[in-house]
């Protein structure tokens, strides 16, 4: 049998290997007949032969996935081992990659693991140093790293996804990677001297590293297993290790030996007072908190607070502010609010003497063209605002609380109930006020003309009943 020598590019020459294997295996050239060399120049196959790929081999996915990892390994035998794998798979052992106990497969998996670990360690242990300014005044950083395997091309995209906003270079003995804010490029090997030998934050970092170490837990074996010594000389913080270890025993001894002091007086008064003092003690204080808080769903212009006198007989709770409310910062000023005003008038209720608020304090919407379309708040959002609503109602102390629609009902009672069934007097749990449920006025606006009139009459009727309930409560 003729012996073949195949020379691939130095490093991880996946393309070269692919071309070669696609020719070798179909031609029936067994692994024993091939010598693989990674390095320098061209192949001993005629150039033309090598660059022209054979037809793709149909390999099981697990095999195809294994090859690129193993190719990155620094072991000179890697191509020969992969050749044996592909040869056996093509020879009928289609499930070979699943037999992890097979000595060849086992070895390849170990190689893949070693490559994956090296990648992970490069992502973890690479340290950038500030290296002056980049193009257009951007910051520039540089790092020196010595990977165990040929992983630079595989490792670099992690850094461009993480650090797009400054320029950086990673130099290794095998090659270099560069990022200029737009593209990742690869170049020739670098030298350690090309990276600045200091950085303004390194000392602070080393201090941090030292301070976060707990001498009472010293466990050098565990440290070395995760951070092998070969990486230490490029980790600025590693310089602190010998000192930390030397001092550990003494520090622990001192802590343990120091006689415990006499127990101090442990009066919780101050802490408890501070906790009590943080509770908002008025509606204004609560409103100040709500106003200053971030909307749970971003987008709203401002929080829309409740309006009306403290001690109002009736409080109305709507769903959430709409477009108009968000603009004006006041509840029930949009079309639904106007309809509510009209209905209140017809029911003989003075809007000025009721308290109007919403279960959710911020407008949630979706932009469609130029319009901001109201979106129903989710149960989680409602629950998030519930604390505020409960505190708010406690300050207002109404006799009757009217839930306008299902969301308000959910906020007040914690339950999802269809309004059609719940409509009328209701209990919202153990509360100092009576409850009442009706539809939200915006529901009326969405009905077709015919149905709207009837529903409106029913709505006014509900309001009247709520007013009667309030009158009863006042009398009681």
């Amino acid at each position: 049998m003729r012996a073949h020598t195949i020379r691939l590019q130095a490093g991880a020459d996946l393309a070269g290997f692919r071309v070669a294997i696609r020719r070798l295996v179909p031609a029936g050239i067994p692994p024993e007949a091939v010598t693989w060399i990674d390095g320098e120049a061209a192949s001993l196959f005629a150039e033309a032969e090598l660059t022209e790929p054979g037809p793709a081999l149909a390999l099981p996915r697990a095999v195809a996935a294994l090859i690129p990892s193993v190719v990155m390994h620094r072991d000179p035998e890697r191509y020969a081992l992969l050749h044996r794998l592909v040869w056996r798979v093509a020879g009928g052992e289609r499930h070979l990659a699943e037999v992890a106990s097979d000595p060849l497969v086992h070895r390849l998996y170990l190689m893949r693991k070693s490559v994956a670990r090296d990648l992970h360690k490069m992502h973890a242990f690479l340290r950038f140093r500030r290296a002056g300014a980049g193009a257009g005044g951007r910051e520039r950083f540089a790092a020196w790293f010595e990977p165990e395997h040929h992983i630079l091309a595989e490792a670099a995209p992690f850094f461009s996804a993480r650090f797009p906003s400054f320029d950086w270079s990673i130099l290794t003995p095998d090659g270099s990677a560069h990022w200029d804010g737009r593209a990742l490029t690869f170049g020739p090997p670098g030298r350690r001297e090309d990276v600045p030998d200091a950085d303004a934050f390194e000392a602070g970092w080393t201090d941090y590293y030292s301070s976060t170490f707990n001498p009472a837990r010293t466990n050098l074996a565990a440290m070395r297993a995760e951070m092998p010594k070969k990486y230490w000389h490029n980790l600025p913080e590693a310089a602190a290790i010998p000192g930390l270890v030397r001092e550990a025993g003494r520090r622990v001894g001192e802590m343990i030996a120091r006689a415990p002091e006499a127990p101090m007086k442990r009066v919780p008064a101050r802490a408890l007072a501070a906790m009590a003092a943080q509770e908002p003690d008025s509606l204004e204080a609560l409103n100040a908190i709500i106003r200053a808080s971030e909307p749970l769903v971003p987008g709203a212009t401002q929080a829309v607070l409740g309006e009306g006198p403290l001690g109002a007989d009736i409080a109305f709770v709507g769903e959430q502010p709409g477009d108009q409310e968000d603009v004006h910062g006041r509840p029930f000023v949009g079309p639904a609010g106007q309809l509510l005003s009209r209905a209140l008038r017809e029911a003989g209720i003075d809007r000025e003497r009721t308290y109007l608020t919403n279960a959710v304090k911020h407008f949630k919407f979706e932009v469609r063209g130029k319009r901001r379309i109201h979106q129903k708040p989710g149960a989680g959002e409602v629950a998030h605002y519930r604390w505020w609503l409960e505190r708010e109602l406690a300050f207002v102390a109404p006799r009757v609380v009217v839930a306008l629609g299902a969301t308000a009902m959910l906020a007040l009672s914690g339950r999802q109930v269809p309004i059609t069934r719940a409509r009328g007097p209701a209990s919202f749990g153990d509360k100092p006020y009576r409850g009442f449920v009706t539809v939200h006025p915006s529901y009326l606006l969405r009905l077709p003309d015919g149905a709207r009139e009837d529903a409106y009459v029913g709505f006014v009727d509900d309001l009247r009943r709520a007013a009667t309930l309030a009158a009863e409560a006042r009398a009681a």
Partner: protein
Amino acid sequence: MDDALKKKLTVLADAAKYDASCASSGAPKRKAEAGGLGSTTGAGICHAYTPDGRCVSLLKILLTNYCLFDCAYCVNRRSSNVRRAKFSVDEVVTLTVEFYKRNYIEGLFLSSGIIRSPDHTMEQLIRVAKTLRQRHGFRGYIHLKTIPEASPWLIEQAGLYADRLSINLELPTEASLERLAPEKDGAAIQTAMGQMGERILQAKEEKRRFAPAGQSTQVIVGADASTDESLIRTSARLYDHYGLKRIYYSAFSPIPDAASILPSQSPPLQREHRLYQADWLMRYYEFSPDDVAGATESGMLALDVDPKLAWALRNRDRFPVDVNRADREMLLRVPGLGVRAVDKIVAARRHATLRLDDVARLTSGLKRARPFLIAADYAPTRLTDRLDLRARLAEPPRQLSLF
């Protein structure tokens, strides 16, 4: 980096080092946007290891170590004589961003002593996270340790910016809390956890971004008389009820200037290690809390053998297990076989018959596994019945301490 800032960093990192809950895993994968900074990989990255073998993944600091409270186990309690310091919001932001840019860290784990009031403190924590996200387009990992005494709406605001939230339980029982942390209220802590669990779940359903890496907690081991069994049962309940992602056990370390009601001794590291193993068995090996409890001796896990081996020694009648035939669930019970080894065995035996050599290639725990399994060319001879089996498999007392 100026000296004043460096000094603060030393004090406030030192004060934070007793909190074990600082892994950076669990956030969905993210990349920085143009002009932004930071990404998450899903798996978490440890950027360094200190000589205690624990990783440095996040910048783990306190906003301040001044505290109104007086929890006996805590170095920052108000009656302690430690040096105090306080960062400004901007200082924490600067440190995080500058350390991040140099690839020292995966993000920030921020906690704080309670100053002025729990709400005030919580607001400051939130401001740090919000500034990082909004002003710096920071997409790295943020873990906030919330202040359970703060108002619920504030604790929940934290979920808008943080990847993970933790509410530390610290002590497994109400009684211990009462004795060692007089101002703390165990019921309030659990209520806060419950609410947080609900919000996280709802947000997931509603596809909102809210603490995507979930919540975790820390329990201190060895500061009170709780048994391992009670710790395990508390954990099981927390995982179940509140959907916690992780429970961290932290062996109580002697702290400088310790309060006198606490044990002054080396931290029970081996016990902590066994608790993690037991926790692991429940999360990945289909062990129930009762199984684990059944492997304890008057409520305590053995220190010389791992809990799975302890369980197997107690249940010898269930072994040996045939690697070529047994179902996955039972293979998972074999000491020395991890989840990955079991999955490889199950995949491989579909196409090959496994001998002992084959198994040896799939696990590093063959020594422990041998007495409990059968392979094509191997069956343990009475090994499972030997009285001295435990002694033969026990680890030599591991010097987990200094040198």
